[in-house]
């Protein structure tokens, strides 16, 4: 039951972010909770040896959570400051707590013409510096080179990691902490005017929701059963004594 309560929380979080661009769903794992030896004796306490029957699981517990880094579908927005990454890689942004990686490409100019995320964090270029945009129409090619009024301004800093699941940690909303430098090689393509939608699949979420609800109910029934059984045992044993 405790495990399913945690699963319900993770699931609700994924459902809540079904419309958050660049969101990567959180997956949970179940682990066997303690293993115990199962033994058989013939009833007479003096009788040895005790027959060893094997091990018995004592239920499940929640295992480590991990992030599903698979790519979400692309949605065309036509907004020149919306970006998606086609392939494995992350935009680099600067937060007060240090540099972070994200797949969320909703950028805008702030009042000082600096390129920032919707949370107001500065987007960094390939040299780790904030990007200041001159006035004018912004075009970005697939390599991430930003051009305004025909002049090259900067190149988006993109972190590529060979194994994001092992190298990155999910720290704040939609942001990941990881190594300072790229460890992978295949640089993704930057797509201007599109966003990557959440990779949480609605039908899968609904199925999981039903599953969690039923498992929780089943566990609850089992607890009741055990309780009843234990109650009966105590009552009848008491009568004999």
């Amino acid at each position: 039951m405790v495990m399913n309560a945690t699963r319900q929380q993770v699931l609700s979080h994924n459902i809540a972010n079904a419309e958050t661009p660049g969101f990567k769903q959180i997956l949970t794992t179940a682990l066997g909770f303690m293993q115990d030896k199962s033994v058989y004796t013939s009833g007479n306490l003096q009788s040895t040896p005790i027959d060893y029957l094997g091990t018995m699981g004592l239920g499940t517990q929640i295992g480590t959570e991990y992030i599903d880094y698979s790519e979400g579908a692309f949605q065309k927005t036509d907004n020149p400051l919306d970006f998606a990454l086609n392939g494995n890689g992350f935009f680099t942004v600067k937060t007060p707590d240090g540099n972070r990686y994200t797949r969320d490409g909703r950028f805008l100019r702030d009042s000082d013409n600096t390129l920032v995320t919707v949370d107001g964090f500065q987007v960094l270029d390939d040299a780790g510096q904030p990007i200041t945009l001159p006035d004018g129409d912004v075009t970005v090619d697939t390599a991430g080179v930003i051009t305004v009024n025909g002049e090259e301004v900067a190149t988006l800093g993109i972190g590529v990691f060979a194994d994001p699941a092992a190298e990155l940690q999910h720290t704040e909303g939609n942001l990941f902490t990881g190594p300072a430098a790229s460890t992978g090689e295949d640089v993704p393509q930057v797509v201007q005017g599109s966003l990557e939608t959440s990779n949480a699949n609605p039908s899968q979420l609904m199925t999981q929701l039903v599953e969690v609800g039923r498992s929780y109910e089943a566990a609850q029934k089992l607890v009741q059963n055990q309780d009843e059984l234990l109650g009966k045992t105590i009552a009848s044993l008491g009568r004999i004594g």
Partner: protein
Amino acid sequence: MSSSLFHTLTISRQDILSRMLDLDVTSSNLANVNTAGYKANRSNFQEMLNNQLKEGTQVRASQLMTMQGTLRSTENSLDWAIQGEGFFSVTLPDGTLGYTRDGQFTLDAEQNLVNANGYKLVWDGTIEEGMSNVSVTPTGAVTATDDTGATVDVGTIQLTRFPNPTGLKDNGSNILLETDSSGAAVTGDPGAENFGTLSAYHVENSNVDLSQELTRLINIQRTLSMSVRAFQQTDTMISQAINMRKA
């Protein structure tokens, strides 16, 4: 790590609230699919996660989508459309400035150029009694035909632009207001770099994409019912835990 089901309820509650906000934004976009110069708004959802404590989602801000709308030609010399980034400035009843892309002006009884709400357009010049056919050139010279039939210059109009127009605040009635995130207003002549040019006898269509907004509406409906379902299930789970002993 907190795995309290009550916390899970607040995740879903926050989720449902955000969907409701998004529904408001989308409804308002849909209502303005035919409003001249209207710019669509977008709700920006963002994941809330604080030191591994999952808090669901929230709407960070609604962002103005400032893409150019298509121009539609009209018969009216006082229909002015902007092609480019600029905005018209109008004086609001409280004396402050509001900004709009809706350039359908009329002359009021005192020969002022006003918009549909009666707010005065900010420009430099006067239109004398008896003048007709008031119009504008692409670079902002306001012209009119006087009683002798000659076309004369009666003044000039300037446009306003912002570092981040997507941060302007929607004040209703197709009027936008300056905010901290939009940055300070800069005025300049039409035709100057980045201000855009004017087209008389034209109206800028709303940039709301009907099919996109309808898809959005269906999405909201779907995600909202999913959030409600999750909320109800958490509630059921809590009740099952409470009633464990009884059954």
